[in-house]
């Protein structure tokens, strides 16, 4: 088992590294791979080094981070809720974040990360609270509650837009998800949160595996079912909240990537956790590279690309009958 985890993870890491170097080479100013390596190691032309180290690298790392977080969150929620249609945004957390960001935009604030985190936390708390019935976390309620809270926050956003329509365009663009103007200073926090989430998720992965057979069976095998459910919901929620706060709502990653990974590795969460993170990272890095380079000097929203590439890939795997 350990060998399989290492094999899949290492292969994905290798592909990710190649993709990263390629991504750093292309853009408004094409830079050959040799110069990219030079810039990364602190040498070369100052201007090129600036473009690589201050613009392209942080953005690529953000794509890796956000893609990984969304995909991992999706993989966890699909296993936890035993529903293949679930994606991170079904928990209502993204709508909560969007509501926070909308309020901030309307109020004329410019930093959107903190308000959207606050909105996400609020949504997560409410969904969690309404999902508890007779001291157990009811996953069906979690799903329904998430959808309901999502709709509720979306309605609030629409209400705000109807009342204060001046900033509608800004809100719409934020909702589309975007990595063009990121704050590189937030990167370390994102990395720390992701690492903590991965470690926790891998550590308890076997318990989650057992729980897919049914809660009663899992209980009889000594799994602390309530703890596991709460833990994984919080992990998935925090990952979603951070990624949405950093980059807006980027669709399809958290839905499609876990399915494709599962088709290759099987449903074992011990492999699924690291692999869905890496595959999501790879997928969003590739999508964002396409989004920012194909129509230069313009950019297109990355969500457009994740949908255009992700959906055909997903359908291919589904037709092969493995997803």
């Amino acid at each position, binding site marked *: 088992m350990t060998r399989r985890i290492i094999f899949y993870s290492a292969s994905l890491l290798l592909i990710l590294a190649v993709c990263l170097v390629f991504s750093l080479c292309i*853009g*408004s*100013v094409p830079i050959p791979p040799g110069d990219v390596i030079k810039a990364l190691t602190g040498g070369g032309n100052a*201007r090129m080094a*600036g*473009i690589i180290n*201050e*613009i*392209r690298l*942080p953005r690529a790392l953000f794509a890796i981070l956000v893609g990984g977080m969304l995909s991992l969150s999706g993989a966890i929620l699909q296993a936890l809720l035993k529903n293949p249609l679930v994606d991170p945004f079904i928990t209502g957390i993204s709508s909560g974040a969007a509501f926070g960001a909308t309020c901030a935009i309307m109020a*004329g604030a*410019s*930093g*959107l990360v903190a308000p959207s985190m606050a909105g996400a936390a609020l949504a997560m708390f409410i969904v969690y609270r309404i999902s508890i019935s007779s001291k157990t976390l009811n996953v069906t309620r979690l799903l329904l509650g998430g959808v309901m809270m999502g709709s509720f926050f979306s309605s609030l956003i629409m209400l705000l*837009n*109807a*009342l*204060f*329509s*001046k900033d*509608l*365009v*800004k809100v719409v*663009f*934020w909702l589309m998800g*975007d990595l*063009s*103007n990121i704050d*590189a200073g937030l990167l370390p926090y994102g990395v720390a949160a992701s690492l903590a989430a991965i470690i926790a998720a891998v550590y308890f992965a076997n318990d989650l595996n057992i729980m897919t057979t049914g809660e009663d069976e899992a209980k009889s095998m000594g799994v602390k079912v309530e703890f596991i459910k709460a833990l994984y919901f919080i992990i998935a929620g925090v990952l979603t909240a951070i990624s949405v706060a950093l980059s807006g709502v980027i669709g399809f990653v958290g839905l499609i990537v876990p399915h494709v990974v599962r088709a290759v590795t099987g449903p074992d969460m011990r492999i699924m956790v690291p692999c869905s993170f890496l595959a999501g990272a790879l997928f969003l890095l590739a999508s964002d590279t396409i989004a*920012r*380079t194909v129509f*230069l*000097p*313009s*950019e*297109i*929203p990355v969500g457009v690309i994740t949908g255009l590439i992700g959906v055909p890939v997903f359908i291919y795997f589904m037709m092969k009958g493995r997803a």
Partner: protein
Amino acid sequence: MSGARPIKMSYTRDQAMFTGFSDSTYVILPENPLRVFKIFFNGAVFISFIFFAFILRAEIITDDMGRRVEVNTPVESIVSLSPADTEIIYWLGLESHLTAVSLNCDYPLAVRGLDRVGSFLNPDIEKIAAYKPDVVISGGGIQKKIMKKLEKFKIPVLVLYPRDIDKGMVKDMTIIGGLAGDFSNVKSRIKEYIRYLKDASAAPDARQFRVYMEIWGQPVMAVGGKSFINDELKLAGGKNIFAGSKIEYPKISPEEVVKLNPDVIILLYKPEKNFKDRPYFKLTKAGENNNIYVVEDPDSVLRAGPRIPAGVKQLRDILDRAADK
């Protein structure tokens, strides 16, 4: 003669264009004791009235979408749905004809007391219809859809959004000024606008900076060549690095800014605290020389209304500060 005193109502050529008169008209006030004359003159007045009413009812105005709109002039009540058009109405001194405005109309301050008929993007059609205005003035872009709904209520809608700040603006000011049928003030106000615009402009021999103007940062959106803001910058003595873009406000790749390497960066919105540290700012000449500025009053730049000269002045002051460095 003690009786009939012909009063000549003369029209200049410009006014004639908008009122439909092709020649001067005489309205004669009868004071003559002779009945026959009285009847004759009453008849003349009556006929003039019919003539007046007929001509004016049939006034056709071509708006900025190229639509030919029939408006009964002189109008008594106007509903304006666009903040820029509201400002133009006040500028021309026609506010007594303004019945209601949109929630977004916030300038000049006097506008606060007026009734509101929904927002710019989401006007309250029923409320507008209830006012039975003689004409509704709407802006461009997303607002264009509204006119179809209002036309069902037989309310004429003029879509007015100047696409450039001199000829287009004068055309729209003239259209709005013509609605009330009183030109005494309008002409001088238009001239005043043009004069202010000239005063705000940079000297032709001023240094031409290459400027990047950002209208929003999340995502990064620039001012393109088709926008009237591009013209404002031109008058202020700057050269827009995205003048070649065929989109008004293109969503651009931040790297493109580094590549085009502007001398000055101007933000048209309130940015985050440490906005000067954005990498794609720092890596330009503007970043190296600390020539990154935020306009103090974005509305005067962003609204195609009478405050454009103030907007141009703001841009010019910024460029002057850059030149002094």
